[in-house]
C-alpha cells in the first residue's frame, strides 16, 4: 500500500513496485489508508508522514493495533522529523527520505518478498 497525498508519488511508486510483480493499492489520506489496510492487509506499506485527515504516525499506531507485525516504512521530506521519530522509538520498520530514490524502494520491496 502506498499512502501519499501526491498522486504523482503514488503512481510512480506503484508502477515500479508493480513491475516487480506486486499488487499495489494507493490512497491519499490517513483515514482511507486505515480502511484500505483493514481491507487489503498489505505486506508492505509506504506511508507519507504528512497526509490529510490522519497523520502518518497516527495511521501507524492504528495499524499496529490491527497487526503488530505489519511492515511499514515512513516516507518523509524532512530529515529532522525522521530523527525526531527515531528518537521517540516509534515502531516503524524504516524511513525513506524524499526526494525518493526508486532503487531504494525496489530494494525494500525485494528484501521483504
Amino acid at each position, binding site marked *: 500500500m502506498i499512502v501519499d497525498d501526491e498522486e504523482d*508519488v503514488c503512481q510512480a511508486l506503484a508502477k515500479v513496485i508493480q513491475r516487480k510483480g506486486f499488487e499495489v493499492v494507493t490512497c491519499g489520506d490517513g483515514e482511507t489508508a486505515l480502511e484500505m489496510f483493514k481491507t487489503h492487509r498489505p505486506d508492505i506499506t509506504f506511508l507519507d508522514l*504528512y*497526509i*490529510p485527515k490522519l497523520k502518518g504516525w497516527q495511521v501507524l499506531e492504528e495499524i499496529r493495533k490491527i497487526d503488530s507485525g505489519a511492515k511499514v516504512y515512513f516516507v518523509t521530506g524532512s530529515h529532522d522529523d525522521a530523527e525526531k521519530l527515531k528518537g521517540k522509538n516509534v515502531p516503524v520498520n524504516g524511513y525513506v527520505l524524499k526526494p525518493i530514490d526508486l532503487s531504494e524502494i525496489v530494494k525494500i520491496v525485494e528484501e521483504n518478498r
Partner: protein
Amino acid sequence: MTLFALSGLFIAVTALTLILILVIYGRKRLHLIWAFFNLSVFTWGIGTFVAGNATTPQLALFGWQLSLMGGVFIAPSFYHTVCTFCGIERRKLIIFGYSIGIITEILFIFKKVILLDNWTFLFNSIYYFKGTIFYFVIMLCWGGIVALSYLELFRFQKINKGRQYMQALYLGYSALFGFIGGASAHLPSVGLNIYPYGNFGVAIYAIIGTYAILRLHLLDIKVAFTRAGIFLCVYAFILGFPFYFGYKTNLWIWSTVFMAILATVGPLIYNFLTRKAENVILAEQKRYQAFLLKASDGMVHEPDMDKLLNLTVYLIKRAVRTDYAAAYLNDAGENKYVLKALRGSGRQVVPPEFSYDHPFIKYLETREEPFIYEEMPDNIRDSLGNDVKFGLVVPSIIKGSYLGFLIMGQKKNRTLFTEDDIKTFKILSNNASMAVVNCLQTDRIKKDQEILLNSEKLALIGGMAAGTAHQFNNRLNAFVLAANSIQMLIEDFLAETGEGLIGKEFMHKLHKLFDDINEFLEKIIWNVRRTEEIIRGVMNVSLFRAEGITMSEFKIAELIDQAARMLREKHKIKDEDELPITIVSGKDEIIYGDRLLIFESIYNTIDNSYEAIEEKILYKLEGDERKNFKPEIKIRVIQDDTETKIEVADNGVGIKDENRKRVFAPFYTTKPSSKASGSGIGTYFVKRNIEEFHKGKVWFESEDMKGTTFYFVLPRKAKA
C-alpha cells in the same frame, strides 16, 4: 558675686567647654583656629570674673589686665578664622593682628603702659581703670581688624550660597553680639557709665559661632533667632513671673505653684509659638515641600522613564528654585550612572556620567539618606572638581539597589537645605524609586513584547515559507521520480529486449515504451511549469525584502488566488469545496498599495475565515446540519473615485460580543493552542498594515454562529 563677675564665669565655662568640643570633634584647621579664639575668650572671661569679683583695686587691675591679655587676641583670631573660612590668603594682616596681641602682652609686663592705676568704683561693685594712649591705639587696631573681618565676610556671603552663606551669616550676626557685648565692658573706661550686662553676649557669640562652624545641617538663621527669641520670652515669663510674684507678695508657696504650672505648659506654649512663627518664616519652604510630596505621589503612575525623570527635575527646579536639578540613572550594563535629565544652569557643571569606579559613586553607595555637599570628605569633593559644588544629593534606592540619584544645585535664595527639606526629599526619593522600578518593568515588557511580536511575525512568514518549501519539495520529488521511472523503464526494456527480438512485437514494445516515456516527460514538463508558477508567486509576494513599503498597482484577484493556494497547501486541502473562495465582484479591479502587506492582510483574513468555518463544522454543527452545511468565503471588491473597499465574508462561527474589542489586539486568539496557526498576531498585523501603512480603515461585522465580514478600505492612487 556681681552680675558682671557671673558673666565672666559664664564666658569662661562656656569657652572652655567649646574648646574641649573643638579639640575632640574638630577635624580641620578652621576648627583649631576657632579653638584658639575660644581660648582668648576664656581668658577674657576669667579676667572679667576676677575684675568683677575683686574686693581690692589691685585684684581688679589684675583681672582687667588678664581680660585684656586674652581679649587682645580675640580680634586677630576672629580675623584668622574668617580668612580660613572664606578660603582667602591674608597672611600679612593676620601676622599684623597677632603681632599687636604679642606686643600688648609684652607691654603688660611694664606697669601703667596700657592701664593707669587710677581707679573708680562704679555701680557699687566694679573697679574701673583708665586706659593710656597705647590702650586706645590697641583698641583702634583691634577695631580695624574686626572691621576687616566683616568686610571679608560681607564679600564672601555675596558670592556664596547654601551652607557657606548661612555660616557666614551666623558668624557675622553672632559676632555682633560678642563685640558689642565685649565693648560694653569698656564703656565705663571711657566715661560712659553703663553697667556691662552686654558681657553675657560674648558667651552667646562664642556658642553660636561654634555651632555654625561645627554643625553640618544648620538651622535657617531666621528660624534660629526666632526660636531663641521665643525661648527667651517664654521662659523669662515662666521663670520671671512667679519670681516677681513671690518677691512682691512674699507668697512663695503660691509662687512655686505658679512656677510648676507654667513649667508644665511652657513647652507647649513654646512649641505652639515656634510652629506659628516658622509657618510664617518658612512659608516658602513649607509650600514647596507640600507641593513636592503631592507631586511625588503622582510619579508612580508615569510609565515612561524619560518623562518621569524630566518631570522630576522640572518639579524640583521649579518648586525648590535651585540653580539646577539633574537626574542620573544606573546603567548596570555599562557600569556607570548616566545623566538622563537636567534642568537649569547645571550643563557646564554636572558631568554626563559617573563610572562605578568614581570616588563620588563609591561614597554615594555608602549613603542611604540625602546628603549635602559639605558632608562629603575632602577627597571626594576634590574628585568632583571645584565647579561641582552642588547643594543636595538624593540617592534613589529600592531593596538595597541603587537605581540612580538626583543632584540639586544651591537654592537661588541662598538658604540652606534644612532637615525638613531632607525629610521631604527622602519621601520624594522613595516614590521616585518605585516609579523608576515601574518604568523599568514597563520598558522590559515593551521590549519583550516587541521581541515576541517580531518572532511571531517571523514565524508567520516562516509558516508561509514552510508551506512554499513543502511545495518545492513535492515538485522536485516529482521530477526525480519521473526521471527515475524513465531510467527504470529503459533498464527494463534493455533487459527484456535481446538481439533476437525483431518485428511487430518489437515495434509494439517500442511504442509502449515511448508512450510511457512520454507520459513521464509530460509530468516533468507540467511540474517544471508549476515550479515556475510557484517561484513567480514567491517573487511577487517577496517574503524577504528590505524595510519600507513599496506602493504599486496590481490586480487584487491575483493576490487572492495566491493566498487561496497557499492556504490550501497549509491546511492540506485537496477539495476546493473545503476552502471555497469566491470573488463575487470586482475581480478585475486594480488596487493601489504595498503588495506584500495587502497579501499578508488577505492571507490572514481568509485563514481566519477558514478556521472559523472549520470550528463551526467540527464543534458547533452536528448530524444533518453538518452534512448540509456549505462553507463560503465571499470576497467583494468595490471601487469609487477615492477608495477601494474589500469585503471578506465567511459563514463561520462568528465573533462573540465579549471578544469583539480584542479582535485587533496583539496575541489575542480564540483558536485552541494545539493549532499551529493560533498565534493571534494576524488581525493585529492586518489592522496595522491597512491603517498605519496605507492610511486606510479596517473593521468587521459579525454575528455569533452566522459568520463574520471583514472590511478594508484603501485610498486609491491620487491622480496626477
